[in-house]
């Protein structure tokens, strides 16, 4: 029984499911560190997913689709940046508006471009990076099967997410850019006084979060499922926000938190296999990742404190 749960695919599945969450969560981390709340991650991811599907369908090249998803994410994020930085709008209101906009806009464009809502035609997908020969029988083969299944069975963006997490963690704590970014979120006035442009810094951070959430959408459409369906992100942007908080506003923490959520989701799928044998309704398993979110956010892991100036518009002068 345990052997049916603990399989290479359990861990591979966790990595796959963690990837869109992690990319959006790291985007959210960068954004909030600069002092701007970005609850539009969900809508940005959805828009990115749509742009990725549409451009891949139009050009036949999934890599162009990935680029389009990133750019679409940046475009939506630019609206958020303009509203919340230049116009000093309430960042939560702006983000909510953008989430609704994304839902309506993608549905509207689907109808305009393809004549129907629902699901697009299949797009050309990006396949796993490595294709390895079938492992031999025996112990060595078993080890190879695990290594391949868990680590080598993935598509490029899955690996890219890990690299992005490491680089962002390093950049946030070891570079001048990172120090300035954190200063913007903690005490923008102080940063301003020493000559750091608050607007420019925050703009860059918001656009980066848009690019990462857009990339998350590309991963969903172009690497995972191969077509766009309305509202296909299914709340992943909001789970990503939770992962950002759980990860205590650090890129590495965001990645690990996303991995935990991905693992919980992968685990519940495997546990469902034993529905017949242990009499537990499947709803119980389905809620596992969300229960985990609530427990985590309720502070079992300790109180998480965000950047001091997060959510506050900065007024120069």
């Amino acid at each position, binding site marked *: 029984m345990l052997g049916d749960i603990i399989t290479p695919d359990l861990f591979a599945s966790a990595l796959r499911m963690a990837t869109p969450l992690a990319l959006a969560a790291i985007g959210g981390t960068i954004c909030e560190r600069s002092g701007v709340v970005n609850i539009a991650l969900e809508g940005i991811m959805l828009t990115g997913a749509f742009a990725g599907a549409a451009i891949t369908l139009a050009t036949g090249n999934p890599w162009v689709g990935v680029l389009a998803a990133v750019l679409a994410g940046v475009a939506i994020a630019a609206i958020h940046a303009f509203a919340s930085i230049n*116009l000093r709008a309430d960042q939560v209101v702006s983000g909510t508006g953008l989430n609704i906009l994304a839902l*309506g806009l993608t549905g509207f464009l689907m109808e305009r471009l393809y004549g129907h809502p*629902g699901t697009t035609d*299949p797009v050309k997908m990006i396949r796993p990076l490595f294709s390895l020969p079938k492992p031999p029988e025996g112990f060595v083969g078993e080890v190879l099967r695990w290594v391949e299944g868990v680590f080598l069975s993935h598509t490029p963006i899955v690996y890219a997410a890990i690299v992005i997490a490491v680089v962002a963690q390093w950049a946030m704590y070891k570079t001048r850019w990172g120090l300035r970014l954190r200063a913007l979120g903690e005490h923008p006035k102080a940063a301003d006084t020493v000559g750091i442009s608050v607007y420019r810094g925050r703009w860059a951070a918001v656009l980066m979060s848009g690019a990462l959430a857009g990339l998350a959408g590309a991963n969903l459409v172009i690497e995972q499922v191969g*077509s766009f369906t309305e509202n296909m992100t299914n709340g992943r942007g909001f789970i990503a926000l939770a992962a950002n908080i759980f990860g205590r506003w650090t890129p590495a923490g965001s990645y690990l938190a996303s991995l935990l959520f991905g693992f919980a989701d992968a685990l519940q799928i495997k546990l469902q296999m034993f529905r017949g044998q242990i009499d537990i309704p499947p709803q119980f398993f389905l809620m596992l990742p969300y229960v985990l979110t609530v427990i985590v956010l309720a502070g079992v892991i300790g109180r998480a404190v965000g950047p001091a100036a997060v959510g506050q518009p900065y007024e120069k002068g």
Partner: protein
Amino acid sequence: MNTKWSRILAVALALTLLVAFVPGCAKKTTDEGTGGGTEEPKTTVKAAMVTDVGGLGDKSFNDLSYEGLKRAEKELGVEIKVLESKEITDYESNIDQLANAGYSPIFAVGFLMTDTVAKLAPQYPDTQFGGVDEFFDPVPANVVGLTFKEHEGSYLAGVVAGLATKEKALSDKINDANVIGFVGGMDVPLIKKFEAGFIAGAKSVNPDVKVISLYAGNFTDQAKGKELGYSLIEQGADVIYAAAGAVGLGTIEACKEKGALFIGVDADQYLTVPGSGDVMLTSMMKRVDVAVFETIKAAVDGNFPGGTIKEFGLKEGGVDLAPFHDFENKVPQSIKDAVAKARQGIIDGTIQVPDKL
């Protein structure tokens, strides 16, 4: 400075919200003429339908209902109209609009509209309503609930899957494990009917077969559907049946990647899902078009079955298996015979298909 900015902000936000809501609220009406030649039989019946939020182009119930409507237009000469719902909140206004314009019968597509129909039917006592996939208790006198014996069609799908998993010649995707899989959308009684029928059908021809059922918890998350497919295939499932809406599209992708056969649902998914031919063994079709057409026909003939729940099973042509398409020549006669036998047994009543686990 401040007031200027806040004014710009107010306008910008208002515009954002406007743009956000306009596509959401827009109702596309599809007007269809009374159709074709003058030699067609004339009737004064004006039939209409309100789509579920999936809208036309869902390649499923909404499209199928529309097919039934179009057939009625062509064969019976009725005037037809479709209103699409973009939001659940559109149901009521769409039905109001059609009822006030004199349409009857009006078909409300999808079980989400059940409560709306139950609420509005008494307000329009002279209008006939057809609720596709809707169950009423009690049934208003001017409403007919159109339901389907999904378990009967799923039983046939189970017969196919139960035999196919042992038929190595069928495809190189068939393995030795004697395991088949079921993917459900939400764990609700309607989906349980599919699961129960499928399992009963599979066990009837292959008592030792192991059927693993996994649920996604929604009908839209394709990525989840793919993960469920991966898990089933890892457990040895080589034929997978999904009753899970768009979730099933992800499962098809998993089948294509990891090598398993798939049985589609609701429509003939060989035709509606491009590029699925090499894994699509067959589909369990809910012939919503048949149910809608038959109901309009009854209305035209003056015997609309108001106040009842109609159950469309194999016998009524309301559910059926789609052709094997690309597998037509590979599926052995023994499987086709077993399906024919099961079909006859269900129609005769000698086989009682369970509708719950």
